[in-house]
């Protein structure tokens, strides 16, 4: 079965700093989703990537899917307190999403 590994598992950064979260797959990714979750709340869709080399941005968040389609990275520029939460990557496999374990992001003032 396909496994998704996210790194780091948790991240603490100072407000204003940049950060990157990685999502690595054991197999080729045919659709890679990024969601954000506030602790104990729902999943908010951020971006979906399907093509090798694809890059998408939304406000200060950029996500890329590498050419081999086995790794994706999420980059936040000039982090703000509103970016705090849990970031989840999900792979579109056999009509469903399979999720990584999540990366907990804390932003310190």
């Amino acid at each position: 079965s396909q496994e998704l590994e996210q790194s780091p598992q948790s991240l603490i950064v100072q407000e204003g700093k940049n950060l990157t979260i990685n999502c690595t797959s054991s197999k080729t990714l045919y659709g890679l989703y990024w969601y954000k979750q506030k602790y104990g709340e729902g999943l908010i869709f951020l971006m979906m990537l399907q093509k090798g080399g694809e890059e998408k941005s939304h406000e200060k968040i950029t996500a890329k899917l590498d050419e081999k389609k086995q790794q994706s990275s999420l980059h936040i520029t000039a982090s703000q307190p509103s970016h705090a939460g849990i970031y989840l990557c999900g792979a579109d496999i056999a009509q469903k999403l399979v999720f990584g374990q999540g990366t907990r992001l804390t932003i310190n003032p």
Partner: protein
Amino acid sequence: EPEVTQTPSHQVTQMGQEVILRCVPISNHLYFYWYRQILGQKVEFLVSFYNNEISEKSEIFDDQFSVERPDGSNFTLKIRSTKLEDSAMYFCASRRGLGNTIYFGEGSWLTVV
């Protein structure tokens, strides 16, 4: 913007009781899902539903679980006889078609005591 809605947002139930969690997917969506997240753990797939039947289910989705789309708009998850380990956040999700974005509801917290 259309959204997936779930009720109740939180339910406390006694062990052994039946629970029904309700979801209204986005109206033109055709694929429906239930996921579960035990506090502090991964979001886990339970079941997918398409064309009025289950298309896939995980090993978590045993005989205690069932899903139904009773009236063309609601999508329900029933747990027949709840156990303590069923305590979790349950998420409903839907998508228009394969390869389209999957949208999640806000979740239903289930606490079994």
